[in-house]
């Protein structure tokens, strides 16, 4: 009986929890894509452009967890060539790329925790975009 119950919980966990994890991952990826494009669009080689890029990311209205929760702890970084990323680059003139990371999307596990799974599963996502013309690069 208990073995059957564990198997049933595992099956329910696979359908419910893993389903939600996949959705959260997908939602986070779409959000970071849009946010990276919004940031890259504002890059103009000035410090004010970097500030506008960060502001644009904070105004991207998409949500996750079936469209119910705001993204928190979003990180915006900049780079000249995609090799070194900085949140606050000293030289804004050479910046041509923006990268957005949504690191804190923690899906609460409902059923799988009863069969030894974790309480939460973090689903991070990131995307990078270049300016002129704005295109996603990763």
């Amino acid at each position, binding site marked *: 009986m208990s073995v059957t119950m564990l198997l*049933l919980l595992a*099956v*329910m966990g*696979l*359908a*419910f929890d893993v*389903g*939600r994890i*996949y*959705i959260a991952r*997908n*939602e986070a*990826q*779409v959000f970071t*894509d*849009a946010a990276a*494009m*919004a940031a*890259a*669009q504002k890059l103009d080689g000035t410090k004010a452009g970097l500030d506008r890029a960060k502001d*644009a990311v904070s105004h*991207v*209205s*998409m949500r996750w967890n*079936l*469209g119910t929760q705001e993204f928190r702890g979003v990180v915006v970084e900049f780079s000249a060539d995609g090799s070194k990323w900085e949140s606050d680059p000293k030289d804004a003139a050479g910046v041509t790329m923006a990268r957005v990371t949504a690191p804190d999307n923690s899906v609460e596990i409902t059923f799988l925790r009863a069969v030894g799974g974790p309480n939460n599963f973090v689903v991070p996502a990131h995307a990078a975009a270049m300016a002129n*013309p*704005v*295109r*996603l690069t990763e």
Partner: protein
Amino acid sequence: MKNERGHAMIELAVCAAVMVSCLAGTFQFGYTFYIYNQLVTAVGNGGRYAAMRTYRAANDADLEKGRAAIRNMVVYGDARPSDLSPVVANLRPEQVDVEWVKDKTGAPTAVRVAIRNYPVNAVFKTVSLEGRPGVEFPFVGRYAPAEREP
């Protein structure tokens, strides 16, 4: 002996009811999440495409043509589909909302793509998705208000 058989029947009936309910619920949620995930991917692809395509608005017909291309990208994965089989079961172009966000001059600054009135039929219950999933992408394409759609 007869009495024990009766007990076993009652036990089976109670257990089967619980099991069937659990499995039905599992299928219900699993299938709904599966379809929702496909829709997130579809509107994401449509949003990316809309954000990067040229905005042509010589007249209302051109605007509508542009919207139709975006809807096709969401539904068929192709702006000009040759194969009319949707990427998500039973999704139709009229169930995709495309809305341009514009500045004071009328130039597009962003595009919103969302699903409306899409029923997820998971056998035991039908869930209707209204406005979800939805995405908003910044417009980064070429702005050509005087051009006609090809």
